[in-house]
């Protein structure tokens, strides 16, 4: 398997682990609801860190706190030692780029224009230079366009540069979001469920893509539901349950941790030990998300009960079915997130 080999030499690579992202005690409350509670997380350069957890665990909210879309109620986020300003465009300028769980491309712009918008912080041309069209302007536009085309080649969309973003198939839209994020030359990229809704081949391609991004020297923090995907990919995995970080460690540690199995993977399904299922099952084509998807049971009903209980360790907990629930769960928050951000 190519992925495993790539990963193998990657793990040996980071010799100078500079801390890229350092989040300390991040807490986010919405009224009475604490969506994220006292989460610490560090990402070092050259690392791919995974963030997993059942639906509604607060992963996306945590991302929003990191990128300035929300201002955390408590806690502090540093990027390369600097405290991040609470405005999302300043966070991007500082060097953190992100994608969205529910794709947020600029639908009526072309693929190329989408990536060019991503270059915004790395270019300076203002209105006057646009109106006067001096040589500096033309040079800057040409350079942006060249860089954007490189990125499109990187994700394999160079032939569709002039298509409208909304006309791309789903998988390509996700890739385009990644290219758009990369265009701001980030030091850290946050991917929110980059393979949601993808078929197995596309998921594998995405895996390769993320390794390639890491090899470009960009640290990656990725949210994902797909266990096999995440344990293949990540150097370190953090598990978020009920807004709290349950455990953090390398794939092996996390996979074999009792509490994770209990809280996240649910009960064993067909007698198969879920412990080694994610890493070892030889890819039953079509069901790459086997553990997560098949255990679809009414979680929502159980969730409030658990909030009161101190620890989320009840073995009866089952992950909710992801595909059916995710869009409706995420979308409504986003308009709210906008207001939050602007107020």
């Amino acid at each position, binding site marked *: 398997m190519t992925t495993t080999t790539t990963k193998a030499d990657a793990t040996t690579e980071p010799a100078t682990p500079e801390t890229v992202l350092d989040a300390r005690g991040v807490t986010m409350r919405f009224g009475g609801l604490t969506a994220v509670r006292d989460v610490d997380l560090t990402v070092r350069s050259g690392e791919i860190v995974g963030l997993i957890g059942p639906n509604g665990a607060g992963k996306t909210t945590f991302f929003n706190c990191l990128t300035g879309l929300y201002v955390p109620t408590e806690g502090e986020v540093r990027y390369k030692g600097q405290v991040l300003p609470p405005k999302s465009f300043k966070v*991007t300028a500082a060097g953190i780029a992100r994608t969205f769980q529910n794709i947020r491309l600029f639908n009526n712009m072309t693929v190329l224009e989408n990536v060019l918008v991503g270059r915004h912080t790395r270019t300076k041309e203002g209105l006057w230079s646009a109106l006067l069209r001096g040589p500096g302007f033309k040079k800057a536009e040409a350079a942006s366009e060249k860089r954007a085309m490189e990125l499109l080649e990187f994700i394999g969309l160079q032939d569709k540069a002039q298509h409208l973003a909304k006309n791309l198939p789903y998988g390509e839209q996700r890739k385009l979001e990644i290219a758009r994020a990369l265009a701001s030359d980030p030091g850290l990229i946050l991917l929110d469920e980059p393979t949601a809704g993808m078929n197995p081949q596309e998921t594998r391609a995405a895996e390769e893509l993320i390794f390639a991004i890491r090899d470009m020297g960009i640290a990656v923090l990725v949210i994902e539901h797909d266990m096999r995907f995440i344990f293949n990919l990540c150097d370190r995995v953090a598990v978020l349950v009920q807004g709290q970080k349950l455990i953090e460690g390398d794939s092996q540690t996390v996979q074999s941790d009792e509490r994770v199995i209990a809280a996240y993977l649910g009960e064993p399904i067909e007698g198969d030990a879920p412990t080694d299922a994610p890493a070892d099952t030889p890819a039953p084509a079509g069901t790459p998300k086997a553990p997560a998807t098949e255990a679809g049971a009414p979680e929502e009903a159980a969730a409030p009960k658990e909030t009161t209980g101190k620890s989320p360790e009840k073995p009866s907990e089952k992950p909710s079915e992801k595909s059916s629930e995710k869009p409706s769960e995420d979308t409504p928050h986003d308009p709210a*997130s906008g207001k939050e951000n602007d107020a």
Partner: protein
Amino acid sequence: MTTISENPTAPATPATTEATGLIGFIPVHIARALTLGGGALTVASCFLAWTWTARFPGDLTVYGYPGGLQLQVLVAGLLTTLFALSSYGIKGTRWLTPAGADGAIKLAALAAFATAWYTVAAISIQLGGPVNLEPGGAVVAVATLLALVGALALPFERPATHPADPEDNGWDQFKHRASNGLTSFKAAFGTTGTPRRLPPLPTPVEILIIAGVLAVALGVFTYGIGTEYDELFIGFLITAGFGFAAVNKSGLLQQATQLTGKHQNLTIAGAFIAAALFPFTQTDDQYATLGVYILIFATVALGLNIVVGLAGLLDLGYVAFLGVGAYAAALVSGAPTSPFGVHLPFWAAILVGAAASLVFGVLIGAPTLRLRGDYLAIVTLGFGEIFRIAVMNTDGTSGPDITNGSNGIASIPNLDFFGFDFGAEHTIAGFTIGRFANYFFLMLLIMAVVVLVFRRSGDSRIGRAWVAIREDETAALAMGINGFRVKLIAFALGAALAGLAGTVQAHVTYTVTPEQYLFAGPIPPNSAFLLAAVVLGGMGTMSGPLVGAALLFLIPNKLQFMGEYQLFAFGLALVLIMRFRPEGIIPNRRNQLEFHEKDETPATLAKAGA
């Protein structure tokens, strides 16, 4: 409504039978012949006398010389005939219908029919009965009817509809059938193939074609502006409306846009030349007056399009910025009623006007653009009113004496540009250029500036940021765009451009009064009409607001006989246009892109693995 009640039978016959027309019982070859014959007869009948007396305007009594409304019917008839010939595949006419002839024929026949029957009806009503028709009038009525019947019998691809549920009650069945009928009815006019691609032509030929298109556009516009009586203008609207739709359906328009898109700079330059030729086509200053007002209106609409179309900021008080510019220019123009006794040269007045609007734009924008959504609309609406009322009250009694209150600033002197007096007549190459024509040229220059600003800012880093914010503000912020700053630039730029136009407007109208700058009123430009021009013409496009503004100025101006009902008719027309062409008259480049993609996607399915 025979066509509709007939349709329920159609869905019942399964799709395997060959395609039929809306009028099912006429065989296709007869229908086609009928259309061609009807079209040819229409053309011929335009050379006959339609009525016996010259009391009906336009003098339709002369044999051998089409006049007034006859000319319009003639054009529509010619279109029908040509499209019909093209549908037979006659050599030399094939190029006319690159997207298929049948849809175009239907609309052209409809154009001829509607105009002819409107004329005949107008004659009969105005002169007291159909007895006033000469044989020619009857001939044209029959000919256009034949052509229309033939056209409607032409086959079209019927959309799949579901037969009504027999267990439903009668009313539900009726509703269902009606909606099925409507679907087929729409399809009869609606289906168009994508047009053939234009064969590669040598560049001079392409340029020649563009010149031809522009000449036609100038001709149609000049004709429309010069229509002298109500009937002629209504006929013009009918003919131009259906004719435009027919040409659009034939695919010619799309081919033309392909060409103009290829030679964009050239087309714009050509359009300006064509516009500059307009005063030379006029014998007196009357229509140049209309021309200047249209230009002012269109320029301001284009400025608003930066704010609304590109950046997506709903500005309901935009006309106030025009007012700020106009008042600023008037105050420094040396007008006797201005409390400031200064008389700045025009270049300085222009700067003062634009700068004043810019300042107001920033003042209004800075506090409101931090908010999202409807706040801006409400605040700008308020600002528009505040401006008007403040100007009304700074008359020396209710407030400081600055603007002369409701009397406004009158007797604004004409511009004098390096010895060129804008108020006087000049003779250029044998043509007399009057006062309004002078201003027309000046306004054309201002518009050129606005066009330049629109194009250059739209196609740049800042323009992309505007569109990104319009598309998805949260994502745009996450891409590192400082939303507030970028929106403020758009808002202030739009304000400054309106102010620029205002400085000229003050001189053209002699007087500026608060009542010129309303939110809504029967006379454009006002905020509502400006917004309507942008939306109607096509948001985010350059030519859209220009076309929209021209229409929105001409229609109320020409339909004054409607009196009180003018605004009502205007509203109705807006609703209809938005219903049938929501993307505006000139669709956005991005929508066109979508068109193109349909035939290109299969080619680019291959994709790299990693």
